[in-house]
């Protein structure tokens, strides 16, 4: 029991140190394009952590998360552009719309299991993209442009990169905090029970549909916040950029690559995936021969083959491996074992 508390406090120290590092990082990285790169990583991490709540903990793999991302982006932007409502309110509104949409979508879709659920989510996202593309109200395929003349914390539009960095860092912390709270609460145990043994969970009186819906709507809410941030940062949205299938795939890929069902796995996944994506493009993209995409794909395949439980799984295996050789290393292994037991 004492070792458990010790690990807890050690983890808390680690988390605070990590956060402090993230907070001061822009002081060292001052070039805007490098800061932009950090923002992209944090955006990816936030999406991945949000996805992980339903895709990782509850084990319901969604390949249609772009639908929530897009709803978030469109709701806050429409409110800002047509009614002049601050994105602070718009983003929350977008989150609520996305959560409601998740409930409406989850109710029929959760009747499907496994791959069929994943396929249904792809279909919903595709339908949504087509609907928005043909909607006059939302300017269809032309897209929405955010007003550039309104900058500042009220409109959440900035000329510098730094405010965006701290905004997305804050959003990531919020998302991780929600995921952490869920992980520790009884809901988190229900989620994992639903993932591992749905029949047993049902036999113990856990309402499968209810908790799956909770997982999806919380995940949708957070994903939509990420979508609103995208709109504020890029200042232009169209169905092809926020409702695209590639967005859905990327969200899922980040979490899967980093480590499904782990708190910080998606953060690590985002660091790796976005780094590969950006640098392979910077280095090889301008050749026009597709080298960057080949390297990008090869890296993902490497991780998938050698570490199917994600990079975080790889790291913890390494740690255990090294730990066993060092004197006293077995203690760490025991502590791990104690901790994962519900």
């Amino acid at each position: 029991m004492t070792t458990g508390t010790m690990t807890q406090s050690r983890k808390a120290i680690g988390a605070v140190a990590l956060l402090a590092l993230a907070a001061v990082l822009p002081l060292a990285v001052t070039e805007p394009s490098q800061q932009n790169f950090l923002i992209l990583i944090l955006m990816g991490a936030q999406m991945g952590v949000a996805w992980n709540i339903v895709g990782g903990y509850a084990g319901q793999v969604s390949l249609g998360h772009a639908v929530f991302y897009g709803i978030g982006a469109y709701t806050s932007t429409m409110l800002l552009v047509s009614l002049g409502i601050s994105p602070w309110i718009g983003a929350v509104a977008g989150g609520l719309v996305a959560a409601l949409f998740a409930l409406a979508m989850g109710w029929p879709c959760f009747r499907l299991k496994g791959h069929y659920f994943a396929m249904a989510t792809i279909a919903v996202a595709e339908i949504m993209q087509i609907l928005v593309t043909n909607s006059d109200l939302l300017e269809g395929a032309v897209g929405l442009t955010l007003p550039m003349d309104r900058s500042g914390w009220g409109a959440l539009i900035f000329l510098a990169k730094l405010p965006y960095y701290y905004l997305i860092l804050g959003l990531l912390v919020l998302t991780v905090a929600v995921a952490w709270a869920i992980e520790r609460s009884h809901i988190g145990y229900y989620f994992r029970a639903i993932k591992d043994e749905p029949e047993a969970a049902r036999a113990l009186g856990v309402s499968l549909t209810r908790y799956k819906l909770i997982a999806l709507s919380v995940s949708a809410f957070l994903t939509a916040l990420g979508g609103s941030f995208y709109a504020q940062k890029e200042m232009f949205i169209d169905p092809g950029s926020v409702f695209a299938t590639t967005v859905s795939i990327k969200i899922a890929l980040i979490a899967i690559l980093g480590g499904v069902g782990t708190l910080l796995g998606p953060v690590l996944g985002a660091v790796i995936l976005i780094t590969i994506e950006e640098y392979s493009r910077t280095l090889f993209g301008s050749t026009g021969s597709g080298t960057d995409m080949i390297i990008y794909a090869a890296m993902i395949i490497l991780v998938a083959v050698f570490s199917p439980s994600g990079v975080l799984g790889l790291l913890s295996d390494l740690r255990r491996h090294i730990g066993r050789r060092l004197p006293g290393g077995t203690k760490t292994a025991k502590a791990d074992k104690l901790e994962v037991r519900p």
Partner: protein
Amino acid sequence: MRFTGTKTRSSATAPVRRQLTRQMPVRRRTMTRMIAAAALLATTALGGLTAGAARAEDEIRIGVIYPLTGAAASTGVELKAAAELAAAIVNKEIPAPAGLVAGVGMPHLKGAKIKLIFGDHQGNPQVGSTEAERLITSEKVSALAGAYFSNVTATASQVAERYGVPFLNGESSSATLTQRKFKWFFRTTPHDDLFVTNFFTFLEDMEKKTGDNLRGIGLFNENTLWGNETTKLQTKLAEERKFTIAEKIVYPAKTTQMTSEVQRLKAANPAVIMQSSYLGDAILSMKTYKELGFLPKMLLANDAGFNDSEFLKTMGKDGEDIISREVWALDQADRNPLIRQVNDLMRERSGVNFNGNSARAFTAIAVLADAIDRAGSTQPDAIRKALQETDIPAAGLIMPWKGVKFDANGQNELGQGIIVQVQNGQYVTVWPFDVATKPVVYPMPAWDGR
């Protein structure tokens, strides 16, 4: 004990992991994983090292963003080749064709060379803005050009606007791009609204020329965004210019049956049909027209399916005399020796002729280089001012335009589309009359007279 960790991970991957563990000895497995991790790290580190390469001071750096990978990669590579040809001409690597306005040799900048730095946006607006930011802040470009896709141009130019760097767009036609009141955005190509407007001007010109009444028009458009937008604009313009819409049909884009639609058109019998179709429906509509023995005096197609290289292959003689809009046509080379010369250079270098996209990409770089030379400086403010003062006559361009001159929104107000007609299996320019290479065949001969 080894499996304690898997409990928190996905149950879907757990069996795979177990299998792997059974098959591979522990050490080897960890070794291979370490190699994989090392490979990951190596790429990242390599990227970090080479990202900020050294640069010469006497070159003028221009960032160019195109879709070099992804679905539009083949177009992107063509655009890149055209931009590189323009740069080679500006830098006097190849002899410049006489008359071309492109700041050749950069006389006002002591013969400095321009260097194009390409960024790949993969057809993704966010990647477009990321690349724009990288080109501006780490590659220190003096100006940006690109990005072909309208939505990518929207995000990339927005970054340029924030940093106060001129962005010259040569190929995106969404009308909204120049309605944003941007200070640093310039566009040489005409936009979509102008193309539709051209049809009505063309009809008025044809009325004057033939003395016929062409006021009754039929709209026949497909029902996705493009067709719907076109229908709206055509309806508005018809009213403004006093044309009557005899029939307006919006059909499902993937239809397999057009008999009832064509019968309605036949009953309304308009003098002119304006049609927006993709390839499949363009062919189907032509077959149905023939079956029902119907043809208007003129069939005005809105590019797309009717200009696809497959269209004439499938239609053969039945595709003759169709009129369509275009941005550029190869027969322009017959009219203008400058276009011929530049096209020959393009073919020598890349083995292909210009098309509407690559000709516009070439023009964008040429116009930008001209402005930088006149600015006599690589300062963004000076370049912006020179762009605003741009006034290139038609003779200095390879485009069928009246010239290049930007209005307050940065839109080239002298740009125009052209109208081509299929004559003897070729698309020939028939309008505007001053750049036409052949007269219009009017009216379209009836099916039985072919």
